[in-house]
């Protein structure tokens, strides 16, 4: 099968052929996305349109463990984003791009070996214009080596100087300045799905590719995100937005995937999804964690953060909280739910001595019976400590005036009860000394 044949002719040759329209704009978009991701290896990333990127990696070899490690990371990372990539390495940018395009993907470290490697490449790699290629084929030039062997002045007259310039740039005989890619300040990537998808698992598979791209984008900027938005586009309905919040900035693609799994598991979709996009607007610097020499018993801070985020993604932020105390005499206000802290425990503040307090405080005081001046809760209660008088809150309308006692039930359990000191009076159960 050759380029340029009709779809019907192709179908006749291969009956199980899958035909998909090609969208050059989307291909460029994808190439830009990969460029943003690849910027984590070097700040010098340039496009070689329409299908290649060139990275100047000589400054990054030591950090990433050599050229083979970088090539392997590039190919593997592209595979995780859903692209098939060939990585070649050469002393010149154009030479490397040609080698990669040919799919031979060798690693040439010295200029001496470059000429022979390029000479073996088929001519279609070096010459994109179809009419030039045809003319060169007609005069018997099949490889780049054949082209280089032709008289230069004749080539320049027949095909113009740009062809020779290209050849010289590939061989390193002419300077090849590049405009390096500047990543945008915000991250946005979109992925068209090959078919409409309704299952969360399939969506997650596609979303993972975007998360990998985001991870590289953030690594290039030494940043992290606190908030992501996954947008699902439907054919008819409006888009579904799935915000993902994080306790602390992160750029871990597998962690993003875990959070997205929980969110997608509970989200209701307006219909089948045909495209999805990932947006992250607020990129904050992410400081590295100091490496510790000895394994810390209490785990790393990110373990804690990831646990909290995972729980919140499934149960909702309000269901996962901490507890803090408040300087308040009224028992129901002395403890409240509060935001979880990432920091380790602070030193306890000095506070005034209060009486004995129960581990469980009931959500609301429960009235209990009084039989012959003795409070009853599953039997008569024996007062073992108290009273502790609490009178407070006359200024904000929820005044309390109570005498608290620690009482023992007939089963020897301890409860916290009080006698109301208002006109209605009566005994109330307020806590359990669990």
């Amino acid at each position, binding site marked *: 099968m050759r380029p340029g044949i009709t779809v019907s002719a192709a179908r006749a040759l291969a009956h199980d052929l899958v035909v998909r329209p090609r969208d050059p704009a989307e291909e460029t978009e994808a190439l830009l996305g990969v460029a943003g991701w690849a910027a984590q290896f070097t700040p010098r990333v340039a496009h070689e349109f329409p299908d290649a990127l060139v990275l100047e990696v000589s400054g990054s070899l030591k950090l990433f463990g050599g050229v083979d490690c970088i090539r392997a990371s590039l190919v593997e990372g592209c595979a995780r984003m859903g692209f098939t990539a060939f990585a070649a390495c050469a002393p010149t940018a154009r030479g490397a791009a040609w080698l990669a395009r040919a799919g031979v993907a060798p690693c040439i470290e010295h200029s001496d070996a470059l000429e022979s490697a390029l000479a073996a490449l088929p001519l279609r790699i070096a010459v994109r214009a179809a009419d030039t290629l045809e003319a060169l084929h007609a005069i018997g030039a099949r490889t780049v080596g054949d082209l280089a062997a032709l008289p230069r002045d004749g080539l320049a007259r027949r095909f113009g100087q740009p062809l020779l310039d290209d050849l010289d740039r590939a061989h390193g005989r002419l300077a090849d300045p590049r405009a390096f890619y500047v990543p945008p300040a915000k991250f946005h990537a979109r992925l068209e799905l090959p078919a409409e998808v309704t299952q969360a698992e399939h969506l997650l598979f596609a979303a993972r590719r975007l998360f990998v791209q985001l991870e590289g984008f953030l690594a290039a900027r030494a940043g992290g995100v606190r908030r992501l938005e996954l947008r699902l586009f439907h054919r008819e309905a409006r888009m579904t937005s799935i915000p993902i919040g994080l306790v602390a900035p992160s750029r871990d693609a597998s962690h993003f995937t875990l959070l997205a799994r929980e969110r997608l598991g509970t989200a209701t979709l307006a219909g089948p999804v045909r495209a999805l996009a990932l947006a992250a607007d607020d990129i904050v610097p992410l400081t590295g964690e100091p490496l510790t020499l000895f394994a810390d018993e*209490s785990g790393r801070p990110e373990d804690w953060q990831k646990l909290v985020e995972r729980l919140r993604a499934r149960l909702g932020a309000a269901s996962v909280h901490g507890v803090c105390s408040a300087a308040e005499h009224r028992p129901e206000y002395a403890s409240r739910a509060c935001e979880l802290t990432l920091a380790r425990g602070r030193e306890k503040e000095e506070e005034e001595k209060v009486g004995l307090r129960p581990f469980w405080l009931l959500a609301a005081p429960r009235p209990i019976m009084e039989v012959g001046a003795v409070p009853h809760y599953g039997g008569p209660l024996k007062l073992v400590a108290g009273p502790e008088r609490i009178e407070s809150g006359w200024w904000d309308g929820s005044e309390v005036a109570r005498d608290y006692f620690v009482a023992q039930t007939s089963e020897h359990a301890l409860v916290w009860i009080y006698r109301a000191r208002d006109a209605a009076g009566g005994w109330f159960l307020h806590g359990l000394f669990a």
Partner: protein
Amino acid sequence: MGLADPGAPLTALLARPDIRRGDALAQVASPSVPTGFAALDAELPGGGWPTGCLTELLPVHEGIGELRILGPALAALSRAGRRLAWIAPPHTPYAPALDAAGIALTQLLIVRTAAVCDALWTAEQAFASAACGAVLVWPGTAKYAELRRLQLAAGKTRALAVLFRAPRAASEASPAVLRLALHTVVGGLAVRILKRRGAVCEQPVVVNIGAPRAVDIAVPTQSPARSAHAQHCDA
């Protein structure tokens, strides 16, 4: 030919944690957290609350001291920077009491769940995280298979994993490695060890979990009377 000291290999063999002897407490592989009660430590394999496996507490009645018995261990863990996860607790844990017990409030994680399956899922996540030093779970009406799964998840953790269950669960089979029934007696809390690794424990252990001291505040001798100040504000 026999070995020079036939007793030595046998002693070495018997010291293995996966060999259980009927007349002694089992060896434990993971470090235990001291309970803070010497009498109880003496009866528990490893000398404290085990980590990396499920411990069941079955109080005969809610509020008899099932948290106070954990108090010293929780306080020690929280001071060591470990997090304490409370999953689906029946009431609100009360900050002043936790504070008084020495538990660092910043280390607490309270998770409220609507369904039993959510609570079990949360517990599995907490076990899987290295951040938690103790995971307290109120599993409600969890079934054996679900608890079995939880026990397997707990095997990977270094945390103290405690399930609080109703007393009627004592007659059911449970995958928990340590099961303690709690009831009250004069002088403290009686801990009946239903199941442990090693020899059977016949006698309940009585633990003094701290009787409340009298609060040093004047006792009103007459019927409650409102202070003049409060009356003034009402008027």
